[in-house]
């Protein structure tokens, strides 16, 4: 219990550091670009337009009502997970010079990567709203529920990011394996296609074991179908987020004293 309070105190002491690290990521991302933060909206918008054109040709026969919004609702969340965890994987190795010189809570670096990704993700949701506007989607009050989905996904990404960052300290292979894993993950998440297109055996597996499916489906409820997300999906999403967080924190705490010997 005393350990717990000490950690809370440490978190309060270093919360400004967290803010500074997030700010650094955001500032450096668009430094010396003319449009700056506008790219956070424009970039997903451009990519989405291209993908929507390409994939709507390929899946013409399917009965998805508003394909661009369908596609983009998935992309926004998956990209956030993908980019932020790829950032987190090197967060400890990349901060070696600091961690070797002064005592700092190490998770600050990992969590700040996930947090700066979240801010980018919120910009992309702005892009999603623009697409909804242009495709004539209906806006309903259900859209206001989107922070609830982002919270689940954020917790999930923090857990996953901490797990990856900790293991990558000891085995640098993790970052390369993870590249392949996320590619497979991308195609196993019904993003370009409806889930019914998958082989029957896979449908059950994807629907129950792929956390991203739970989050994407929830967001589609809000943007596409104007309904409250299915309680099962919310439950899966929350359970997956908690499991990831517990695993990540446990591995991280277990190994963090040895980081210094490997970075």
């Amino acid at each position, binding site marked *: 219990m005393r350990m717990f309070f000490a950690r809370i105190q440490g978190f309060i*002491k270093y919360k400004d550091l967290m803010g500074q690290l997030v700010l650094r990521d955001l*500032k*450096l991302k668009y430094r010396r670009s003319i449009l700056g933060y506008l790219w956070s909206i424009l970039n997903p918008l451009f990519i989405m337009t291209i993908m929507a054109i390409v994939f709507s040709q390929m899946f013409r026969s399917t009965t998805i009502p508003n394909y661009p919004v369908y596609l983009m609702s998935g992309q926004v969340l998956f990209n956030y997970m993908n980019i932020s965890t790829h950032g987190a994987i090197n967060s400890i190795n990349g901060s070696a010079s600091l961690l*070797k*010189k002064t*005592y700092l809570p190490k998770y600050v670096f990992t969590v700040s990567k996930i947090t700066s990704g979240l801010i980018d993700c919120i910009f992309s949701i702005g892009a999603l709203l623009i697409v909804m506007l242009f495709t004539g989607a209906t806006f309903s009050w259900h859209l206001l529920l989107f922070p609830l989905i982002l919270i689940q996904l954020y917790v999930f990404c923090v857990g996953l990011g901490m797990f990856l960052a900790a293991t990558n300290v000891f085995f640098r292979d993790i970052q390369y394996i993870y590249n392949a894993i996320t590619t497979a993950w991308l195609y196993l998440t019904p993003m370009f296609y409806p889930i019914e297109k998958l082989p029957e055996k896979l449908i059950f597996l994807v629907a129950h074991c792929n956390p991203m499916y739970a989050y994407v489906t929830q967001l589609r409820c809000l943007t596409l179908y104007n309904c409250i997300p299915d309680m099962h999906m919310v439950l899966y999403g929350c359970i997956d987020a908690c499991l990831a967080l517990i695993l990540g924190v446990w591995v991280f705490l277990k190994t963090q004293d040895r980081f210094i*010997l490997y970075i």
Partner: protein
Amino acid sequence: MNDVVVDVRNVTIRFNLASEKIDNLKEYVIKVLKRELLFQEFLAVKDASFQIRRGEAWGLVGSNGSGKSTLLKAICGILKPYKGEIIVNGVISPLLELGAGFDQNLTARENIFLNGTVLGHSMDYMHKHFDEIVEFSELQDFLDSPIKNFSSGMRARLGFAIATIVRPDILIVDEILAVGDYAFQQKCLKRMDEMMSGGTTLIFVSHSIDQVRELCDHAVWINKGDIMQVGPVDEVCDAYMESMEKKVAKK
């Protein structure tokens, strides 16, 4: 006021040389299968014990690779000792090695805040002391250019200015004064003197024995992880210099 601020008790710090070379899965699996995961241990510090009291100034001397920096890291809490314990009463301010806390692409202004929060200060505190830091580092004209364009001396100034805005209980200085021009070195030494008269404890690592003699009142001599001698600065420095000269004469 005679209380102990740093209590080093029978501290041994161990590195595992064998496993340090393995940082990919393939090698790890092969070694496990071949049962070659040997424990090649290397003791960087062996059974060190000494006590530092409030207001004292300690110098750590020893040849390269003798374990000085390892011991400092253990005192800062970065490394956990393998055996023994280190009890620290008070706030430690480590003087980061040049540029270690800086992000090369950020400007000096942004780095002041980043580095300040790295040292555990709040943003309010940094806003309050911003002008003081700029004034001490004498970098007013370069505040908005990226740190990557700074010379090592300029970085050292900034680093020193940030680390010493707070009056820490324990100030750790590791070889940082080697760069920087003479005037700035004197300015730093003066500031360290001021802090010490205000009750700050100093732990100082340097290869410049003259600086150690000038600043410190106690010293620890480490050689290949063994504590050779602990005591008043002149005694330890004399013994250390004597052994170094013998070494030189042998060659």
